[in-house]
């Protein structure tokens, strides 16, 4: 960026500074909830470390706001370390954030299944363990669009991350020991499935142009959260047909069964208005109802996004009493709050 010439339609300054300026704004707006370190970059609860509480840390590329920095606070994450846009954080960030989150009871890393994230978190975990911090890691891989086979890097971690952070955050707040939170996190991951689609691409600020091109009558089905193309390109469909297709993919995969109760998330990719997300929720409700699946709790909104991409993702989590009870516990973060 030169002088005051901006090359893309974003409310930013220098594209490279966008993630840090976001964090600075977040810290100014929510100084009661969190603190921000800019070198290395991480975010921690205002009262971190909470002595004796197992710490919860997540991280990944920026561009998915409010995840993860917006989920730091009471009842959810102790720390988050955002990398550059769509780029996993570096080991030193993760290490510093882990230290800041460690109240002496160890720290769980919630990692999404991407090569970059895995490698950087692994390196950081080694460094932390060498310092004597008890670090565990759970890898989230809930995206049904990707087959888990020898021929892929496994399934991507997407929407289940948000649910895992909420539920494990509640457990940590209740005083669950680290090992139990780790088990709980694996349980959430095992019982959750997601799929996403895009109506439009998004533009990585530092790249300055859209990650892919879509005709006016095309959508990308089976996208992740990094502005990448999806598994297939489809014609534009009405919400009823589109959501039937997406819900079908998610339901068949676990599979979810008649009699199941679920926590459902209808998530916007960043540029989709609330009107559309509730229209999607209505479709999902009726489809699941028809299958005998009851939505016991739900989130409808922008929680795990891809910059300004238009589109949505669906996440279903097969709930049980423990998960519902933890779900209902209070949470107080910039991006999610209830009960407080």
């Amino acid at each position, binding site marked *: 960026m030169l002088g005051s010439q901006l090359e893309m339609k974003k409310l930013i300054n220098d594209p*490279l500074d966008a993630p840090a300026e976001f964090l600075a704004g977040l810290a100014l707006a929510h100084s009661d909830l969190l603190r921000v370190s800019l070198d*290395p970059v991480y975010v921690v609860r205002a009262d971190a470390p909470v002595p004796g509480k197992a710490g919860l840390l997540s991280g990944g*590329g920026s561009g998915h706001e409010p995840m993860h920095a917006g989920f730091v606070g009471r009842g959810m994450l102790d720390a988050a370390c955002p*990398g*550059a*846009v*769509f*780029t*996993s*954080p*570096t*080991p*030193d960030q993760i290490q510093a954030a882990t230290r800041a989150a460690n109240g002496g009871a160890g720290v769980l890393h919630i990692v999404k299944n*991407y*090569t*970059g994230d895995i*490698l*950087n978190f*692994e*390196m950081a975990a080694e460094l932390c363990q060498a310092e004597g911090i008890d670090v565990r890691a759970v890898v989230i891989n809930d995206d049904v*669009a*990707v*087959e888990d086979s*020898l*021929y*892929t*890097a496994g399934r*991507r971690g997407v929407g289940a991350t948000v649910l895992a952070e909420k539920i494990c955050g509640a457990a940590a707040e209740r005083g669950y020991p680290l090992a139990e939170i780790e088990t709980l996190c694996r349980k959430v991951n095992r019982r959750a499935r997601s799929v996403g689609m895009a109506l439009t691409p998004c533009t*990585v600020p*530092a*790249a300055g*142009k859209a*990650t*892919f091109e879509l005709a006016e009558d095309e959508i990308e089905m089976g996208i*992740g959260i*990094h*502005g*990448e*193309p999806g*598994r*297939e390109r489809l014609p534009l469909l009405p919400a009823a047909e589109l959501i039937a297709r997406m819900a079908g993919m998610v339901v068949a995969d676990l599979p979810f069964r008649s009699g199941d109760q679920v926590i459902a998330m209808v998530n916007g990719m960043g540029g989709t208005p609330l009107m559309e997300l509730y229209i999607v929720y209505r479709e999902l409700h009726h489809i699941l109802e028809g299958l005998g699946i009851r939505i016991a709790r739900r989130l409808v909104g922008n929680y795990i996004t891809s910059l300004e991409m238009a589109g949505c993702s669906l996440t279903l989590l097969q709930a049980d009493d423990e998960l519902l009870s933890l779900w209902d516990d209070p949470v107080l973060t910039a991006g999610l709050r209830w009960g407080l």
Partner: protein
Amino acid sequence: MGPLSMAGGKREVLHWLDLLQQVYAANRAWLTELDSAIGDADHGINMDRGFIAVQAELAAHPPADIRSALQAAAATLIRHVGGAAGPLYGTFFLRAAAACAGKPELEAGDVVALFQAGTQGVCERGKAAAGDKTMLDALLPALEAMRQALAEGTGSVEILDRAAAAAEAGMRATIPIQARKGRASYLGPRSIGHQDPGATSAFLMLRAAAEAWRA
């Protein structure tokens, strides 16, 4: 000056790291464009950010020897790049540094050892194999070419020239492959027809090495 004149030293290594900063700055858009097609549009940005940081680090703390230069590059890449490229190239330079421990000059065999250690590190860190459509598809053929050239008794410059040529061929050969590792693998068959960004940055790395040693 005999065979020693064929060897590279700290000067060549520093020149190489310096060239890498220029090369990734110049190819930032191209690498990012390649990563748009089958990834998340950040590879050029990542490499550029990384080698700018390496330059700054080396300028701030001039390294004492080859090993510390490569070691500083490794630590800086790991600290500033993130993504898949950060740990992978970071590990490359970490292992390369170890291979150069105690060596004030690099004979032709040392140059090959440097790249062999680095490439080995990438294999171990990323658990990918040849044909997975990753940077290894440039690094592994390059290493093979180096070994052959060394066996034929050629000097460092020629070794690196042949390595770069093999890397370039390997890079192009990623186009028809369906990715099996990294972010591109999520695309399934749609990854076919696109050149791998990491294989491309690896080729650029080798070509820069050849240039550094030639100069």
